[in-house]
């Protein structure tokens, strides 16, 4: 019997260019930021004051949550470009909107590119262009 609690694995062939996904994410609190920065080895957990670290908003968990899926094993970041448009205050609900913009197979690797936007009711905080890769 399938484990209904586990999200499905998103296979390369199932990814459709142009598909859009959106979630309303839980607000990030001070403790969440402290846990994240400590896990990164950063001692000063108040480094970003009362706002969420931009790279924390770019974490893969938000992409996975918005797609409601896990990745096939072996997926790696190839690169990303993050435009910081505004700061996200701690405790503020936000939306993550993801669009699949490209995918292509290579001889050794397969690539998938996403555009991701992080917004609140009032403003757009981040725009992220992300490219992931898997061994072919």
């Amino acid at each position, binding site marked *: 019997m399938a484990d209904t609690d586990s999200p499905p694995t998103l296979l390369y062939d199932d990814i459709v260019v142009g598909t859009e996904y959106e979630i309303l994410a839980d607000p990030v609190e001070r403790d969440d930021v402290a846990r994240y920065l400590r896990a990164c*080895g950063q001692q000063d957990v108040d*480094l970003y004051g009362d706002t969420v*670290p931009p*790279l*924390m908003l770019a974490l893969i968990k938000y992409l996975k949550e918005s797609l409601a899926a896990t990745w096939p094993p*072996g997926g790696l*970041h190839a690169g990303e*470009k993050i435009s*910081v448009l505004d*700061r996200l205050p701690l405790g503020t609900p936000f939306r993550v909107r993801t669009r699949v913009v490209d995918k292509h197979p290579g001889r050794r690797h397969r690539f998938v590119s996403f555009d991701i936007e992080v917004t609140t009711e009032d403003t757009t905080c981040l725009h992220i262009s992300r490219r992931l890769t898997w061994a072919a």
Partner: protein
Amino acid sequence: MGSVTLGALSATPQQVADFAASSGSDGRSHLDVGYAREQFGGLVVQGALLAERLLSSAITTGVIDPDLRGSTIDIAFRSVVHTGELVTVDVQCDDEAATIVGTVDGNPVIVETVWPMREGSV
């Protein structure tokens, strides 16, 4: 300004596991020793962990302001970093951008460039 060394960093398997729990970067390349050894030669440190460590180092040392509004952060992952490998972090600033480079044995593994956003770039 020339290149300035900010320090060196490495991550243990436990730190990688802790980061996986809080970040969602919990793939087998980071957590499954046997799989990671076969596919990548050892456990792989999450790129997101390295990216934050580099950026935090530059902020802590005053090279970059923590208020990053109006900035674009460009991150290129050149090759995987294994747990226990020592990553040396250097930064170079000019009028255009701050470029933070992580190297292992002299080879760049991650390059993070922070520059003012250009009009129409989003």
